[in-house]
């Protein structure tokens, strides 16, 4: 592996320009542009020694989550014992680890080494990987995943995203992976230090719609060539495994399992308004060649792209709820402590009502998210519910964020308080697609 990213990119450009397929398909011109962009904007191949994913033992059949069956069909907001345990653990970790590390990791544009070490002690991968592959999961637990996301994001969105993106990849592999894909990749996710991995869906263009991907996969002999650009990929720079959404020519959107070491995968840190602790990156797939079995799923269980997007939106919404709750908790405290005109500002209706409205909207976002998650894990249709949760988070996330800063006035605008970060985080998480799923 070359140490000089510029040299690597130039070499890649060379290889690419001489590829006969490029000329045959008349792709030369736009392809040249992608490559040029890669070089000009400092995209690079991974400079690290990469993990080799190997199957220790081979599954005969893929492991799948069981559909959740409740004992009764009553409306019930009680959490299960397991869910309560996960919440307690996540809240504590968020309070003691995420929140204190948030500002530092935001500055360094990614999770710090000591954060990742502490995270590995939680062994979150166990919650997602099935028993046969080293974990403990047996049932679909979309709701537990959403609760985990919400509580971690209450500590810090960026670091929550960094912790959860790999779990999302493992989750998708359990849901749709073939026995080969599962045997090869999943055991690593059950280990304490899970591989850096993420779901790459978003592309850099206005009005992006996951159903109209410009990243394309074309059939090339006994494999595929993937070409396009992805953005907002958590851990993108360090990622070892990526699930890439690409439009398979003539078939529609598919998910491809791509190892970071594949030729033509070029990454670049691409910090956004918020979630900066997640190490958000852009990735160029410059005619990345993957084998036929890189399509997520097999002939029986091909990945349902629309379900994947919905599960991803539930995860993004749950994260937004956590940030919203952080704003609510903080502004309550602030409004009670801050004295103006001789009394706490919380004694003023104009202030108190803004806080009441934040509470109403955060609870609205939460219940919509939980409702979609609960339907998903019971095997009920949940596209509408996930869609509406997303709409609410887009609309109200913005409102909650801006009012959070407003409540602190000038103090909301400076970095002495975390509210300006949450303002940026909320806008970021509600403008993303992909990245993770529950």
């Amino acid at each position: 592996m070359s140490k000089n990213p510029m040299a690597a990119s130039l070499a890649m450009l060379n290889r690419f320009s001489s590829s006969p397929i490029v000329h045959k398909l008349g792709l030369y011109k736009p392809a040249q542009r992608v490559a040029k962009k890669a070089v000009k904007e400092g995209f690079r191949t991974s400079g690290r020694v990469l993990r080799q994913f190997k199957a220790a033992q081979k599954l005969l059949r893929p492991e799948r989550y069981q559909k959740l069956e409740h004992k009764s069909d009553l409306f019930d907001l009680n959490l299960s014992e397991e869910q309560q345990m996960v919440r307690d653990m996540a809240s504590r970790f968020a309070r003691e680890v995420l929140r204190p590390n948030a500002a530092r990791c935001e500055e360094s544009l990614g999770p710090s080494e000591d954060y990742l070490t502490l995270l590995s002690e939680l062994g979150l991968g166990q919650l997602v990987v099935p028993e046969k592959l080293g974990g403990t999961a047996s049932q679909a637990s979309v709701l537990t995943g959403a609760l985990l996301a919400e509580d971690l994001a209450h500590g810090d969105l960026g670091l929550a995203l960094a912790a959860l993106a790999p779990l999302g990849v493992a989750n998708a592999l359990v849901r749709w992976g073939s026995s080969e894909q599962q045997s090869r990749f999943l055991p690593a996710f059950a280990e304490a230090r899970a591989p850096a991995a993420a779901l790459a869906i978003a592309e850099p263009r206005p009005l992006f719609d996951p159903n109209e991907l410009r990243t394309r996969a074309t059939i090339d002999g006994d494999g595929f060539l993937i070409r396009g650009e992805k953005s907002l990929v958590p851990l993108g720079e360090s990622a070892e495994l990526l699930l890439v959404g690409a439009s398979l020519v003539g078939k529609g959107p598919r998910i491809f399992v791509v190892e970071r070491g594949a030729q033509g995968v070029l990454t670049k840190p691409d910090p956004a308004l918020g979630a900066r602790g997640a190490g958000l990156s852009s990735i160029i797939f410059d005619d990345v060649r993957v084998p036929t079995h890189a399509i997520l799923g097999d002939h029986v269980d091909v990945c349902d792209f629309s379900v994947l997007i919905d599960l991803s939106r539930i995860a993004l919404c749950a994260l937004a709820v956590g940030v919203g709750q952080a704003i609510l908790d903080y502004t309550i405290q602030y409004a009670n402590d801050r004295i103006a005109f001789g009394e706490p500002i919380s004694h003023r209706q104009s202030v108190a009502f803004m806080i009441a409205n934040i509470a109403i909207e955060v609870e609205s976002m939460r219940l919509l998210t939980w409702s979609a998650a609960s339907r998903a894990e019971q095997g009920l249709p949940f596209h509408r519910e996930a869609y509406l949760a997303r709409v609410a988070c887009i609309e109200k996330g913005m409102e909650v964020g801006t009012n959070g800063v407003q409540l602190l006035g000038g103090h909301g605008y400076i970095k002495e308080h975390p509210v300006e970060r949450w303002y940026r985080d909320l806008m970021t998480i509600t403008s993303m697609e992909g990245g993770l799923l529950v």
Partner: protein
Amino acid sequence: MQLEIPRKLQALVEQAHLVASEVFRPISRKYDRAEHEYPVELDMLASVMDGMNEGDLGGGAGAAKLKQERKAQGGGVRNGTNMSTVLGLTELCWGDVGLALTIPRQGLGNAAIAAVANEEQSLRFKGRWAAMAITEPEAGSDSASIRTTARLDGDHYVINGEKIFITAGGRADLIVVWATLDPALGRSAIKSFVVEKGTPGMQLVRLDHKLGIRASDTATITFTDCRVPKENLLGNPNIDTKQGFGGVMQTFDNTRPVVAAMALGVGRASLERTRELLRQRGILGGYERTLFGSTAAEAELYRMEAELEAARLLTLKAAWLADNGIPNSKEASMSKAKAGRAANHITLRCLQMCAANGITETELLEKWARDSKILDIFEGTQQIQLLIIARRLLGKSSQELR
């Protein structure tokens, strides 16, 4: 956790929807025009509802059944009368809010009696239609400063004062009146009294003409030396300055989610009809494209639907808390605040989107836009709900956060 409507309550939802579509909708416009005319069609419906409640082993539904349950003792989770009432009222108000408000024996007074009456009173007032008289010309949201007085005189209380905005005040058999035993003692001296229609000194002064819910009568009643047997006082007759408003306000924790449910009904009616009309224009709204990639009309539908769905879940949560004996004052107000403003917004926006179809009387959209407004006002205005929520969140008393 599971947030779907259980099978055992689906029959009730279907029955209520049937009443809404087959009984209410066909006469909806008729009684909107014929304000103050009694909808005789409801007499038969009321008996059917009484019968349904009598025979219902699950505890039934409706105003007279609402109350905070005690916390379940290992008996597991409950979906009881609060939830079934919320679900039933949503459907009925999908049909017509005004008519739902004037179903005999389903008055707000019935909810008050259910919440605080003792056994003897519950038995004595059973099967009667009870309205609720709280508001006065000089005291609306500030119900602690009501001026109607009740003075103990032998075996009777003597009531004096004027009450306005009494829903079903002209039609009900009983009026539950809020009056103070001693205006100097503030809210803890406020008690509620059941006054039988025809009691000397009680006079129906007028029925108001309104923006909407015209099928429901709204009365002004005066009490002049009106003598009420002292056993008609609901709750504790002693003035307990520590207990404060507790007793009388408790009613509202139960009825606010019900008013939220009414808002859900009329909001859904508008949204469904608007979707039907837009479908004829080729606008399907199938949640296919992203919010910002959708047409403006579709995006508007999605935003409204998300608001309505959020309000629905908040309302179910508040009802579920009440059914399971968990304090729900904050959540009840959240459901009412969200549902009230969402429904009003939705009915108004739908009207705008449907243009001429929205504002002329050929459709019910313009009626729903008038009806919905009251749901953000009565049982505590939007602003009162925010005040209650904020006090709870911030840990403030009514003296601190006024």
